[in-house]
Structures are given as C-alpha cells and as structure tokens.
C-alpha cells in the first residue's frame, strides 16, 4: 500500500499545462529472497531483504488539457528512507543445513535517492476538485549494504559490500483540491 500527500502548482497556455508537483508519503515495500543454488545444487545461506519506509518525490509535469481532462507525463527525483539488506543468520558446518557456514552477515543500506518517470490522466469533476490515475516507475539505482563478517569462519572481521539495485512500478489513485 502506498499512501501519500501531494501538492503542486500548474500553469496553463492554451491546451498546454505544466507545473511542479511534490509527494510525501509511505511506500511500504516488503520482499525477500534467496540466490539460486550454486552449480552443485547447494543452496546459499544469505538472503536479500527489502523494507519500505517513508518516501518523498519532486517532479516536473507537462500535459495536454482537453478542457476538463488532462493527459500528462512527469519526471523528477525521489527519495526513500527504506532499506535494502543482505543477511546471513545461519550458523552451521556447511553440511546441515546444506550451504550454511560458520559466519554471519547483517548488511543494510538506505534505499536513498532515485528518479521517477510517470504518466497519468486527471479529470476535473468540479471546478475545485480533480481525480487522477497515475503510473510511475521509481528507479532507486544502487544501494550498498555493508557490514563486517561475524561469528567466525575464514572471513570473520572483514568489511564487505554488496551491490543492490531497486526499481518499483507504482499505480496511484488520487484526489486533489485546487485553490
């Protein structure tokens, strides 16, 4: 679920409408998964985890107004306070469970900055009230979870980094009050 407040300003020249728009809300992302087993079919004991959080966006918007209906595209920057993690909390001897070694890892990084592009349609139900439907793609680029390997094993005490990319498709339904 995404829930957000939105504010903006439009200018109009004939059928051309352009403006700036800001969003502030909650992008409650969740997901986790394991890498594929290795070439020998042995599973891996470290999983990727995504956790959502608050979110903010600022975009330029340009559209074509057919009287009370506006078709638009938008693009700009986004920031997410959510986190991407790479976590190994399985301690064993590689045999049982298979692939689970002695070391652990708890590496996290903020999702951080990205860009957004989107398109949508907005309709003025009344002179002051509009409803809109929008698709946007948020590309948060790369985060870099980092941590020191713990709990033993050959690499204990070594600082390691993992590259993590995140992209999110969104569909939003909104209502705006114009003043």
């Amino acid at each position, binding site marked *: *679920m*995404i*829930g*957000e*407040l939105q504010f903006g*300003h*439009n*200018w*109009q020249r*004939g*059928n*051309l*409408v352009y403006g700036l728009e800001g*969003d502030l809300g909650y992008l*409650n*992302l*969740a*997901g*986790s*998964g394991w*890498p594929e087993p*290795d070439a020998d079919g*042995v599973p*891996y004991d470290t*999983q*990727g*985890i*995504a956790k*959502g959080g608050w979110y903010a966006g600022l975009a330029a918007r*340009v559209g*074509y*107004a057919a*009287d009370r209906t*506006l*078709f638009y*595209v938008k693009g700009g920057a986004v920031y997410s306070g959510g986190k*991407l993690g790479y976590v190994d909390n399985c301690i064993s001897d590689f045999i049982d469970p298979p692939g689970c070694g002695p070391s652990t890892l708890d590496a996290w990084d903020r999702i951080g900055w990205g860009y957004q*592009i989107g*398109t949508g349609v907005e309709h*003025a139900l009344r002179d002051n009230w*509009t409803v809109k439907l929008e698709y946007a*793609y*948020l590309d948060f680029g790369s985060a870099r979870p980092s941590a020191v390997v713990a709990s033993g094993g050959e690499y204990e005490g070594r600082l*390691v*980094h*993992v*590259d*993590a990319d*995140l*992209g*999110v*498709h969104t*569909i*939003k*339904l*909104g209502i*705006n*009050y*114009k*003043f």
Partner: protein
Amino acid sequence: MKAQFFASALILGSMGLAHAADPVVAAGDQAFSWEGSYIGAHIGYGWGKARYDDSEYNVNLPDFPHSASILTRTV
C-alpha cells in the same frame, strides 16, 4: 526503461504538434482552467525487483559470486 523514455518522448512530441494545430481559445470562452495550486492525497500499489550482487563479498571463492533477484511489493 528505454521503451518508457521513448513513449514519453512520443507523447510529448505529439502533444507539441497537437498544440500547434489547435486554435487559440478565444477570450470569454468558458473552458476549464487548470492554472493554480492544489493539494491532495493518493493511495496506490507498487511492485518491483531488487537485484543483489555479492561479487565483492565473496571475492576469490570458487562457487561465487551469487546474485539474487527478489520480488518486492507494497503491503
């Protein structure tokens, strides 16, 4: 992504053409004006992918690196 950029460019391009071909709205016409400030709220749904690559984590190990692609969605 390339396709989306292209689609956006196409929409923008055709918008410009349509705008150029449209007659200017005459003064006194009662057409709705979009000009002004607004505030509102949104609800929605999101889904995506996170891709992990641990080649630096597992450098020099024979069966590595691994990479993971995980599905994410809003809850």
